[in-house]
């Protein structure tokens, strides 16, 4: 990203004020579209050049789609695909009389696609304004103008004592401030072997160590709440039902590395998450748990909640920082890593929401207790979530090492209506697809990698026998191409071409497809282009005939 643009924004008063992305999003939400005049006004307020703000306005989904007074968004995530094969979008367009991406001539109504609303437990999901309806009858209710907020199944824990499924109590911060120096907390997190829960599984303690050792006027903690993986609603659950756990984890990270400011980037597809976090932060300030002189210890730490504007790739850490600075959410080459040069050029820890939610337990109970949560496997507690195809969907807290079969058959109760499980996709769109015959694979980083899959965000999307695997490939690559940030050439062009190869009706030339997948895997700048081939590789390996390969 341009160092000059970042500096211009900084001189105009950032960080602190609303970013260019947030200001444009507010205009789009209030007035239905962003005009040239709005772009000039936002440029003047943020210190950014007009052209740069225009570039921002053309990048994010929420900023360039014209909205009617009633704005309806159909979730086109993978769980909704598994539920309807995508039919709900067409039915919604027919019923409303507006095509996806369009606004009615009288400006009354507009329809858009969105991926994903995080109501995968009761798909298909439809957002009408800020109300999300989901599951059986949702389509009919939205068409009849009787949209109602969907309920969410309560989270369950299979651990003897819940770690991530209990609301935070700030005991970890009290313990750390009361008896350990920042370095001791950092050592404890390193010893706990806490690996990142956002997909890359990088040890959190090492990130902290790098940031603590880097030079800069100040340091920042950034929580990545842009859980864009279709099928995953784990971070959504944490932000809405355990926001204190996240805020406490951030304060602990700030204490450990010497940062006094934190940011949470929440995706706009989760309207309730931002509200829950802001309310929790306000309560925490009132209780002296955030702000100046926390609990009388002299520690200063506060958190700002920032909303995204519709981009999957913003979940990648350099793109996330670009978005937080109000810029186009494109990926930057690493090094420099954010720990060395991140937000506004300062050392920055970017951790996933669930990763940070694990920290209070480590601070309160120690690394040994944390590792003991998953005996004989990767350390700690893990949240998984199931899609609507299962009998008991929802968020469940488990130990690493449990097999995917136990998860699907016992924990989630198998598929509803006696359906036969054909395959599962674990960890989001960049995760491989596990056919039913490999269900005995343990849920853990290395065993899943060995079968071309990953833990990812921990989502488990089950497909029943009725799912057409060529349709699934089409669905996934369409998502991949739509969400490419457009910076690196393999992803920008390659995903479009890969989608075209599977979208047509004919047989697919396997050699040409595999050469394209290799270009994406080895050539892409980030995990989006690099990871999108993983599920396609799985389909080639396990369902070659259904895919229609030569």
């Amino acid at each position, binding site marked *: 990203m341009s160092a000059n643009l970042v500096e211009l924004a900084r001189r105009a008063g950032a960080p602190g004020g609303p970013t260019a992305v947030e200001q444009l999003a507010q205009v789009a939400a209030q007035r239905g579209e962003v005009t040239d005049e709005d772009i000039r006004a936002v440029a003047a307020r943020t210190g950014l050049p007009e052209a740069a703000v225009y570039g921002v306005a053309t*990048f994010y989904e929420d900023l360039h789609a014209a909205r009617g007074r009633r704005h309806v968004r159909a979730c086109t995530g993978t769980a909704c695909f598994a539920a309807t094969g995508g039919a709900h979008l067409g039915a919604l367009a027919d019923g409303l009389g507006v095509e996806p991406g369009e606004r009615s001539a009288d400006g009354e109504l507009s329809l858009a696609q969105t991926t994903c609303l995080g109501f995968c437990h009761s798909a298909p999901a439809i957002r009408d304004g800020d109300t999300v309806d989901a599951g059986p009858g949702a389509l009919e209710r939205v068409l009849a103008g009787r949209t109602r907020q969907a309920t969410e199944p309560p989270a369950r824990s299979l651990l003897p004592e819940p770690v991530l499924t209990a609301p935070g109590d700030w005991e970890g911060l009290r313990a750390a401030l009361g008896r350990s120096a920042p370095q001791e907390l950092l050592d404890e997190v390193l010893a706990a072997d806490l690996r990142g829960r956002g997909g890359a599984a990088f040890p959190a303690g090492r990130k902290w160590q790098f940031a603590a050792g880097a030079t800069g006027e100040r340091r920042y903690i950034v929580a990545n709440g842009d859980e864009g993986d279709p099928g995953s609603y784990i971070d959504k659950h944490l932000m809405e039902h355990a926001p204190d756990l996240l805020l406490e984890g951030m304060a602990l990270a700030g204490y450990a590395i010497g940062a006094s400011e934190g940011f949470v980037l929440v995706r706009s597809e989760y309207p309730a998450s931002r509200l829950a976090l802001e309310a929790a932060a306000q309560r925490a300030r009132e209780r002296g748990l955030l702000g100046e002189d926390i609990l009388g210890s002299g520690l200063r730490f506060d958190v700002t909640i920032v909303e995204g504007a519709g981009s999957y790739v913003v979940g990648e850490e350099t793109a996330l920082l670009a978005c937080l600075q109000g810029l186009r959410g494109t990926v930057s080459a690493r090094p420099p890593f954010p720990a060395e040069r991140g937000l506004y050029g300062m050392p920055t820890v970017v951790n996933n929401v669930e990763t940070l939610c694990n920290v209070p337990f480590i601070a309160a109970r120690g690394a040994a207790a944390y590792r003991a949560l998953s005996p004989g496997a990767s350390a700690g507690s893990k949240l998984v979530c199931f899609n609507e195809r299962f009998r008991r969907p929802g968020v469940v807290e488990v130990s690493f090492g449990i097999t995917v079969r136990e998860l699907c058959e016992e924990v989630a109760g198998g598929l509803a209506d006696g359906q036969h499980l054909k395959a599962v996709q674990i960890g989001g769109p960049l995760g491989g697809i596990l056919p039913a015959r490999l269900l005995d694979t343990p849920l853990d980083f290395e065993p899943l990698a060995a079968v071309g899959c990953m833990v990812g965000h921990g989502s488990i999307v089950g497909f029943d026998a009725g799912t057409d695997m060529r349709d699934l490939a089409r669905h996934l690559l369409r998502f991949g191409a739509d969400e490419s940030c457009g910076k690196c050439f393999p992803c920008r062009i390659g995903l479009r*071409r890969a989608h075209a190869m599977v979208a047509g009706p004919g047989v697919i030339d396997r050699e040409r497809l595999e050469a394209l997948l290799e270009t994406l895997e080895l050539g892409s700048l980030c995990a989006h282009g690099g990871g999108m081939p993983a599920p396609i590789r799985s389909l080639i390996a396990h369902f070659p005939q259904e895919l229609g390969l030569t």
Partner: protein
Amino acid sequence: MTRLTVDGESVEVEPGTTVLEAARAAGSEIPTLCFDERLASFGACRVCLVGVAGAPAPLAACTTPCAEGMQVETRDPAAQRVARAVVELVLSELAEPPAPHTELAALARRLDVGEPRWPGAVHAPDDDLRHPYLALRHGLCISCGRCVRACDEIQGAFALTATGRGFQANVAAGIDAGFRDSACVSCGACADTCPTEAITEISLLHLAESATI
């Protein structure tokens, strides 16, 4: 100083030197497309991929800093395969082949890139000829970001921006109003760096020629 080998040749470089700079110093030529030595490395095109011993996948030479003991192989087969495929993809997004004298055409000849294996949608022609000295042909843009960076880093005019995302990514001057209604100062840095002639200078000679026809 940092010591490494490039294609078996030992090289000693200042800390912070990129693999691309070290390779060029050692006499190994690495093809590039989004790179311009006047601008900060961008890492978008992936044409400068090289093999590095111990790395799980090829690395972009322009954004990878040299490390002590690094062994760089500029002719790594996987890296070369991917670089060629990328140029093939780039050619496939243009409605017509690039003019023979452009940097992109020269690169395609050098890498011996043939017919695209993955044909498909191309960028629609959309010419902006409103400015007296600069022409912007969106259909020839390959989103390498060189013009945007030149405007930002060389001139500091910030008249250009990347637009859209994915396959629709392109560039715009001002609020897509063209160079004339932007902060453009007609310095020509964008046209100078463009590898496809998506941005060209309209010289007085051209104007004189068209006037006589």
